[in-house]
């Protein structure tokens, strides 16, 4: 009886060992497939009254031989554009309507120093050329590459599209793993919404690991109240705006009369 019990205990113990070992093996193999970690210093950025854009520190680790590339993108929308063309042979005007469908409002790439072109590769899914593949154009007859290229210029000027070379820094290597860090730019034109920060480990022209984190920008305080009123009670908002404008005009008018009454 007690001998039988002992055998059962041993079997159970052995089974547990096997389960633990296979879990450990699974764990290491999962880590080998996804050798990239990514942390955002702050996953929620608040847009308050005196907000003027900000920066966001990101850190992580990856295999020592790989390079890290970070892309920030979000929210996708349809962009309506006017393409310029010549009218009457010599006047440049907004001539044709074109729309880019499913285009991110923000797209920024961060690369380590050197050979940035190597990372801006459609096969890696990084860079403007990769982005254009996921975008549809209306009308279909329009030149998608050209229009998107011009749109990129427009967005780069505004600061919401960018390729930031040499912005990823590496730390010390230990046990075949190195750390990386970057300071991301959050321009004031990046509006409230959800964005994705994605890090890629690139080794020998292939993606060997990827990891992404959600980044949220939200309106708080005065900007939030004004925005809620403008969209929630638009008529009241309009009347309030007019009343305050008239009141300011009257107050300034009276102050000036008091100050400079004598002509």
């Amino acid at each position, binding site marked *: 009886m007690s001998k039988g019990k002992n055998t059962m205990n041993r079997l159970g113990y052995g089974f547990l060992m096997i389960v633990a070992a296979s879990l450990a093996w699974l764990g290491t193999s999962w880590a080998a497939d996804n050798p990239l970690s990514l942390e955002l210093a702050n996953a929620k950025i608040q847009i308050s009254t005196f907000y003027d854009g900000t920066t966001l520190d990101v850190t992580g680790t990856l295999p020592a031989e790989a390079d890290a590339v970070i892309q920030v993108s979000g929210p996708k929308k349809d962009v309506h*554009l006017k393409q310029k063309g010549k009218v009457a042979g010599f*006047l440049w005007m907004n001539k044709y309507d074109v729309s880019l469908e499913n285009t991110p409002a923000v797209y920024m790439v961060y690369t380590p120093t050197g050979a940035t072109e190597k990372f801006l590769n459609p096969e890696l899914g990084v860079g403007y050329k990769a982005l254009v593949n996921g975008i549809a154009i209306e009308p279909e007859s329009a030149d998608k590459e050209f*229009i998107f290229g011009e749109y990129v*210029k427009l967005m780069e000027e505004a600061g919401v599209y960018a390729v930031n070379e040499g912005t990823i820094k590496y730390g010390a290597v230990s046990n075949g793993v190195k750390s990386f860090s970057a300071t991301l730019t959050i321009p004031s*034109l990046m509006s409230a919404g959800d964005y994705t920060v994605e890090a890629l480990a690139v080794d020998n022209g292939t993606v060997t690991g990827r990891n992404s984190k959600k980044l949220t920008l939200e309106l708080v305080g005065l900007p939030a109240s004004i925005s809620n009123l403008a969209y929630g009670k638009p008529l009241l908002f309009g009347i309030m705006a007019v009343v305050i404008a008239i009141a300011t*005009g*009257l107050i*300034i008018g009276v102050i*000036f009369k008091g100050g400079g009454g004598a002509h």
Partner: protein
Amino acid sequence: MLHMYLPIAGNSVNVFLIFGLGGFVGLLSGIFGVGGGFLMTPLLMMFGIPPTVAAASDSNQIVGASTSGTLAHMRLGNVDIPMGVMLLIGGVGGGAIGVQIIKILKAMGNADFLIAITYVIMLGGVGGYMFWESLQGLKKSKNAPAEESSAPEPNDGKKSLVQKLPLQYKFAKSGCEISMLLPLGFGILVGILAAIMGVGGGFIMVPVMVYLLRMPMHVVVGTSLFQILFTCVNVTILQSYSNHTVDFVLAVLLLLGSTIGAQVGTAVSKRLNADQLKIMLASLVLLVCAKMMAGLLMTPTIMVALKGGH
């Protein structure tokens, strides 16, 4: 530098920069009786404000500046209220007609071209004529200094035709007795043009009052501001209600500058004679015209623009 976030425009701006911009445009408004939208909207776009938000918030700002300016001009006896009311009624009616015309033109497919051409011809024609005419006036006043009356008397043929119109009324401040239908008709004309061009119409209304209604220049400025005030109240409420494009933070920043600017402008206006005022406004209008022409003739660096801009 102190920045503030504009929740509707979706961008932040330097508080002092916008305050200064408001002050500058308010100054022009007080001097010339124009709203200044034709200057303010492109300037705001340069600072990263979307065009629709720039135009709508500017009209909110003009409400404040023109209240301040109208008050200052009223104290100087420069506002002809009956005249302003007739122009205003005409302007609102004309605006509604203009919006319909734009719809038809858009359906025909050549609206943008016609708008741009109307713009350049109006600005060039009005600016050029005012410049030439006030230059003649300045030359004349050098020889024999005479205040205010640089406009020649209308000829007899015109006078009798105008006098035959019904509803004659004595516009005391403007110093003329004409039919009420006259300012109403001109108001409609300006309203149509303003709606087609997408502007407040101050810089068309001022020359109309000076040359067609033959009002004294200082009364023109005050009456124009009075009229612009009501137009912009209407635009602000409509834009807030249907398009959510009024950025209140932006408007208040501009407003603080422009209401002060309008008071200073009125004081400046008082010290200038009619021809000096006209030649300065003409130069400003010609400058805007030249900028538009350059934009139309030069090859753009970026071949697309966000829809909603010019």
